[in-house]
């Protein structure tokens, strides 16, 4: 059973529909005790980092997630769930969970950035390049594309924690993680067959 963490994130039901379509049992909960008892956790999200962190703290879900990570439970973060696992987000200048060292930064600072040509948010389909093999991305082939909607991206301090990148005015990390934690900036639940496969791989992930 996969537990979906409910912190008023917009795409929660989309992720649940995708799992149901795949025949993967799941439950949605806002209860930190249920999160502590979960076998596997998906931590989705759409919205702003500051608001997301406030809801997590109000509901006591922040400590439940930290404990679950420390206990070695498989965790998958999606979109905002990929950004707030770092220490800090430039969005709302928000202090985040700090499961990984690093921060979430706004697009537009890279050397190859052309503000006249590139729009923010980065919205649409973009190719994802695997930079380090990971069981959740084992099915990817060169130029497979995923659906993105975001203005900020995750930048772990340790480059060894980056598993895939995309290019938008320069390369940026789109899949990060360590040990039992994996997180993707793209929307697996809205990226067609290649996206659904990431969720299926997570369901089958044995540590």
């Amino acid at each position, binding site marked *: 059973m996969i537990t979906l963490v409910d912190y008023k994130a917009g795409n929660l039901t989309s992720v649940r529909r995708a799992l149901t379509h795949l025949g993967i049992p799941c439950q949605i909960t806002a209860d930190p005790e249920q999160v502590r008892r979960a076998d596997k956790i998906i931590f989705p999200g759409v919205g702003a980092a500051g608001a997301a962190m406030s809801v997590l703290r109000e509901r006591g879900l922040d400590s439940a997630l930290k404990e679950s990570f420390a206990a070695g439970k498989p965790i998958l973060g999606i979109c905002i769930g990929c950004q707030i696992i770092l220490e800090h987000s430039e969005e709302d200048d928000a202090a985040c969970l700090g499961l990984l060292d690093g921060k979430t930064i706004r697009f537009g600072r890279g050397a190859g950035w052309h503000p006249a040509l590139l729009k923010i*948010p980065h919205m*649409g389909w973009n190719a994802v390049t695997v930079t380090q093999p990971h069981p959740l991305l084992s099915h990817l082939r060169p130029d497979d594309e995923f659906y993105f909607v975001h203005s900020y991206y995750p930048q772990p301090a340790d480059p060894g924690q980056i598993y895939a990148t995309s290019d938008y005015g320069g390369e940026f990390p789109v899949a990060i993680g360590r040990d039992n934690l994996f997180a993707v900036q793209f929307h697996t639940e809205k990226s067609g067959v290649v996206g659904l496969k990431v969720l299926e791989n997570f369901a089958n992930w044995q540590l």
Partner: protein
Amino acid sequence: MLSKRIISCLDVRDGKLAKSVKFVDTQDIGDPVEKAREYYEQGLDELVFYDITASSEARGIMLDVVSRVAEQVFIPFSVGGGLRTVDDCSRVLLAGAEKVNVNSAAVKNPGLIAEASKAFGAQAVVLSMDVLRVPKSPQIPSGYEVVINGGRTPMGLDAIEWAKRGEELGAGEMVVNSIDADGTKVGYELTLTRLIAEAVSVPVIASGGGGKPEHLYDVLTEGKADAALVASMLHYGEYTVGQIKEYLAGRGIKVRMIKDEG
């Protein structure tokens, strides 16, 4: 680099698929959920469902269509038609849509864009506009006027100004539908699309007039659109999504190609 998106619009009336030609003579051409799944499997990038039903009774039927699509189709889609309040928008988002598409109601009440953008984020709010070519005048300097109510009511509003205003209010994307081109299949309105794409910094989706893959090429290059909306080309089985994308890729346009398994 982002791929150019190919989006299809499904007009839904009383839960059935319909395609308008110049906004009159709509004819039923099938089940919207089946069509959506077929296009998803062909590699379509995104869908728009437009509810052209008038009765409030049929709104519930539309929400049922939205949730059935969300259970079977795993690409983004938006829903428009008859959304007048933030609550209306909230219902279609909860039913499974990623984005709402506001049109006439936003012209009458621009505050709707701001409220929806604040409630759901700019990425969830698409401003759709129906535009008619008119003689240039002090009121309509671009010669493109916004019309509402399915093209019947001119609003004395310049389309370029409205697009800029919409972006300021918090729209995250624009659908620019040329009524002159709609249903003609002779090509998109390139000038209108380009003027709006140059005036705003959010993605612009060209709509109306697509009849051949080369029309998409034109509007994605010369028209500077980020995405092109196709309807009858797909609905009548004249082309598949794959055929359109192969043509575009062959001419150097970056599009998302679906690979065969294995």
